[in-house]
């Protein structure tokens, strides 16, 4: 198993690595600026993020050296571990701003909802790979994947972390649509979902979550409180104009007007300081990464690889899209980092592991039948 295969080196996905490094450099540069004026103690966040990147590259190396197909046998163990971590964080986790999202590992606070996303991708890919008959799934056959999604979904919703919970739904929907569905299944499912929205609004959303969505609809209504984030973020992005205010010269970011500017709103800092041109470059990188990922899915010779690659790409894509749409005022504010760009070890590790798996699939595209 550990026999070194020359083809692995030859087939290594240098392109994906290059995009990863590019986005990483931009992200670290941006974090340097975003954390510059902050009165934070200890290691600056860009340094911590750099360490996570280095660890992440180590993880990628480890991942690519093992055939991704092992995941088929590991997936239920992974799923159980992820759910246990979620449960543990709920029961014993560190509470930040009334949410239970963190587990203290001494050197590192783990946010178990991040690996849970990736675990769900792996779990669903395995399940669909095993059960796909090629005739499309019936509602009955979807019961298991729905339950597999519902458990971590509810655990995360309980933290509460609406953004991440919704992410699990996005993954489920994307991957389920990707494998074949029966038309009637699709119709029933979408009907149920639509009717569930008002019920969910009334019974499942916390008041602050409802308020966030209401504020999103009318941000100018209450500019100093809840609409503040959206307003300030739009101002930051908009005031960047064509070429930006220059590195470290963004006033919205440097003068503290932007909240959460090294995590969820990191892109606002970037857009303010680098303008339309800089933003397009960053967006282009993500776009290219998505297309490349889809290409990896297509070129995979086995169906598990296709499903897994597609799941990982949709995970990265939806996070990026929701985050960017949110900071540009197109979607309500939910906790959602920009993968690879926002500060946060759990998110960065998860994304890099996902990219590692993508590379793994890419490298073994000719080896599936061997």
């Amino acid at each position, binding site marked *: *198993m550990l026999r070194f295969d020359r083809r692995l080196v030859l087939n290594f996905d240098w392109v994906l690595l290059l995009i990863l490094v590019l986005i990483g450099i931009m992200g670290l540069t941006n974090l340097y600026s975003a954390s510059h*004026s902050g009165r934070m103690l200890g290691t600056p966040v860009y340094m911590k993020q750099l360490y996570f990147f280095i660890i992440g590259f180590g993880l990628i190396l480890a991942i690519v050296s093992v*055939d991704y*197909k*092992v995941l*088929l*046998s590991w997936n239920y163990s992974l799923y159980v571990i992820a759910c246990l971590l979620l449960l543990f964080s709920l029961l014993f986790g560190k509470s930040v701003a009334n949410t239970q999202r963190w587990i203290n590992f001494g050197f590192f606070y783990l946010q178990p909802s991040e690996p849970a996303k990736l675990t769900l991708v792996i779990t669903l890919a395995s399940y669909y*790979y095993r059960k796909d008959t*090629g005739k499309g799934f019936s509602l009955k056959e979807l019961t298991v994947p729905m339950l597999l999604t519902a458990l971590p979904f509810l655990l995360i919703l309980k933290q509460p972390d609406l953004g991440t919970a919704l992410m699990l739904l996005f993954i489920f929907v994307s991957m389920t649509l*990707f494998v*074949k569905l029966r038309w009637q299944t699709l119709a029933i499912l979408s009907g149920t979902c639509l009717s569930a929205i008002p019920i969910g609004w009334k019974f499942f959303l916390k008041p602050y979550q409802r308020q966030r969505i209401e504020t999103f609809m009318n941000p100018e209504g209450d500019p*100093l409180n809840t609409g503040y984030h959206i307003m*300030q973020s*739009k*101002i*930051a*992005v*908009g*005031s*960047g*104009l*064509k070429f930006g205010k220059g590195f470290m010269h963004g*006033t*919205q970011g440097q*003068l*503290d*007007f932007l909240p959460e500017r090294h995590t969820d709103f990191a892109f606002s800092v970037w*857009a*303010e300081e680098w*303008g*339309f041109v800089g*933003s*397009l470059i960053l*967006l282009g990188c*993500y*776009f290219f990464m*998505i*297309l490349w990922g*889809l290409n990896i*899915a*297509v070129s995979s*010779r*086995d*169906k*598990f690889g*296709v499903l897994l690659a*597609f799941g990982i*790409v*949709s995970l990265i*894509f939806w996070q990026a*899209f929701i985050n*960017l*749409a949110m900071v*540009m*005022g*197109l979607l309500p504010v939910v906790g959602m980092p920009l993968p690879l760009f926002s500060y946060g070890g759990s998110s960065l590790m998860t994304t890099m592991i996902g990219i590692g798996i993508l590379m793994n699939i890419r490298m073994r595209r000719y080896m*599936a*039948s*061997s």
Partner: protein
Amino acid sequence: MSRFLTSIHKMDEAELNTLKRRIDIATAVAIFFIAILIVRLWYLQIHRGDDYAQLSENNRVRAQDLNAPRGNILDRQGRIIITNRPCFNIVWVREDAPNPDVVLKKLSRILHEDISVLLKRIRSYADHPRYMPFRLQEDIDWRTLVYIENHRLDLPGVRIEVLPTRDYLHGDLASHLIGYLGEINEKEMKKHADGDYDLGDQIGKMGIEKIYEKYLHGEKGRKYLEVDVHGLEQKQIKVRKPLPGDDLQLTIDIDLQETAEKAMADKAGAVIAMDVKTGKLLAMASTPAMHLEEFIGGISTVAWKGMLNNPLHPLIDKTIQGQYPPGSTYKIVTALAALSEGATTPETIVYCPGYYSFGNRKYGCWKKTGHGPVNLRRALKESCDVYFYQMGQKLGVDTLARYAHSLGLGSKTGLEMENEKSGLTPTEAWKRKRYNESWQDGETLSVAIGQGFNLTTPLQVCRMTAATVNGGILFQPQIVESITDPDGKKIKQFEPIIEGHALGTQEDLDIIREALTAVVNEPHGTGQASRLKEISVGGKTGTAQVIHLSKYRDAKPEEIPYKYRDHAWFTCFAPSENPEIAVTVLIEHGGHGGSAAGPVAKQILQRYFAKKTAVAQKLQP
């Protein structure tokens, strides 16, 4: 490993193609969503970019007004009466105070102010935005300031604001004349809509400060600061310096004003000194003074009520708002009318037995034993009432009124001050209109000696005196000499304004002037208390009856209740040969004019001529 590999489902071509088609759809979906992001980015950064750039500037830049120091107020020699000093206010910013209770508890200890007072003040600003500062306490003392500055970090939410405020170098000197400042109200905001006033600004509320507000105010400056989200100053972007107000040079002489106010220290009344040849006022004092310092930062209710209820009425400017019967000083009017109208000559003798019978009533002379035979000169010198009763009877009230008017009585002097009273010079027509009754001849007798309906302000009497001895010229009294802008350029010089001329010839006026000189300088003159060694002074005493009560007729002044005592007048001029200065003193309930008011006038004259001698000696070493 091989177990996995063999278990891997190998796709046939058809299945692979289906998946590829789905990937194509997924690609299209991704392109669609990314296109949305790019369009949004373009909309924010390019299409509406300038709007957001402006909003970001508004966030970043905070403009701060810099209050201009008001113009100085100087005396006629250019000595500063009032200037500015920094005033330190405690300002509260709710946004910066996470634990207001703790901070306010500390603050109340520092300020020796009950915490409820501070809370009340804060509550009154409840509808202000949280970031907007407002004043908690104004004009704190130096020790409090140092303490707060040293404990800044323990007092989040507390800031110190520095504003220029009035510095009264001479205390309450000329308080009524100068007036005071106060916080601008809505009405004043409307009135000065074109000026750069904001709520909370100081504005002249009275006196010179109010009338010359336009000049004294200056022009606000502006400071542009870069602030962070907490409003903390990061750096200064640019500054437009404030333009100080124009300096106002008064015609007032600090020394004479001080002398007047000191001489009147324990009395209620008015003193006016006028340059006879220009109508400019050298001193203008009303006592008791207002306490100007108490008005800084808004006068307290207690202090205000105290002034309002003070029986000596410190809030009234008695020089122009106090209306008193002119008493015997009015005999100048009667004498001038009598001479001009030919009712008397300098030689005409009238016998005074101590009373004058008219109708079925006896009108008493102040000297009950009578003056015997008196001519005009002696009648003025000894203030014989009987002589002037007869003159009044001959002339009639309307003729007297004509002469009184020509000497400026019965109408406002036109001094540039607010709320000046016009006094009252009665006529037959006036009485008919006012009371719907016809004039009684007996009333003319009272008017002729300055009693009855007659009312004058001290300023009117002073101007009358000046007009009597300056060739009959009635000047409009002035208190401002010139206005100078902050660069030292004189932008306005006030020239004397002639308002009219006294009726009567120069000869008649000379006769009166000579007689008035005798009042001070000859035996039996009523004004001898004001005699000076070197300089010849002329003047006229007056004792204005407040109330006619028979039970007090023979009582000594000390035995009469204060409010019923007569007002004491003395109006004078010097040097009598060629008068330069006229001084009028009125002491409310002061008793006899000569003895009560005379010495006050004398002190002012002494000071005036002492200064003049000193200047002359300096010029001729």
